[in-house]
């Protein structure tokens, strides 16, 4: 609950450049985070099953990934009760109302339309991470946590 606590963030994205930008953006925020970067959905699921006692607070999921895409990961994660406390933020190029609504219905909490510039990226990541933190530290109802930015 105190600020000294570390917010565990994970990103699964197959685009190397996007991963680097994400890492730089997160590290530039005045928030105490630890970051795990993974390249695809298969790695992500393996990581979650292996690290059951040290799960991330929030996962940023790229929708378009080879082999296992973001939506498949989302469904698999939401089927497993062990992962119920993890916040899932979908990271997508689409900003259509329908896509947003559909991903929320599938169990996502946050929907981020990938921003075009670095400052916007920093702003949306900060909003997602700090708002999510309130849900982890104030006993708010995660079942009805939605944020679209």
């Amino acid at each position, binding site marked *: *609950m105190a*600020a000294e606590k570390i917010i565990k963030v994970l990103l699964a994205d197959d685009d190397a450049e996007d991963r680097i930008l994400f890492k730089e953006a997160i590290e530039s925020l005045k928030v105490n985070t630890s970051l795990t970067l993974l390249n695809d959905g298969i790695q992500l699921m393996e990581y979650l099953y292996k690290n059951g006692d040290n799960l991330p607070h929030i996962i940023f999921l790229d929708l378009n990934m080879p082999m296992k895409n973001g939506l498949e990961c989302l469904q698999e994660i939401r089927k497993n009760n062990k992962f119920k406390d993890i916040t899932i933020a979908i990271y997508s190029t689409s900003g259509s109302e329908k896509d947003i609504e559909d991903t*929320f219905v599938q*169990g996502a909490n946050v929907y981020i339309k990938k921003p075009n510039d670095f400052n916007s990226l920093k702003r949306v990541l900060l909003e997602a991470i700090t*708002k999510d933190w309130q849900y982890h530290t104030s*006993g708010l109802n995660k079942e*009805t946590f*939605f*944020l679209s930015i």
Partner: protein
Amino acid sequence: MNIYIKHDHRRLFEIVLKEQFELLNVDYKLSGMGEINIADKTTKEQFKSLTSALSRYGIEIVDSQKSTLVQKIKDAIIEMVWDDGKLPASKISYYLSKKLNHSYGYLSNLFSEITYTSIENYIILQKIERTKKMILEDEMTLTEISYHLNYSSVAHLSSQFKKTTGITPSTFMRVVNKRKLNLANTI
């Protein structure tokens, strides 16, 4: 078959505390929401077991003074937003500073430092949380909810809802209902 339930979070909280403290044989007294006086003879082992027993329920023992004060600010805000008739008509800053005996400037800086959000945003977040719950209980219209939570108009509540969640109250309701359907279909 679906059944619908209502719950009283404070009552749940008090029952959980009672069970856990009694289980570990620790004498205690509730001296306010989120403040508990425990017997001085409590051993380190008891305290440790208590900490882990409570953590299963998402209840955390906060120890540092700063965290304690932040918790008191949160409790005061939660009480203000969730207990009917507690939302002050006067300035909220004045209400909080009077209730907690510190200047609002001090409370506000401390809160931002520890929680990564401001008191103002936290109040909005709690009001929107209550709005969500009321929408789902389906007993009041959005207009009635806005009146209930001291908004100047339903438009003001709608726009704050959209700003906080990124979606409109009606999309929110649709998503929650569709999720329920989804869940019912997979069982």
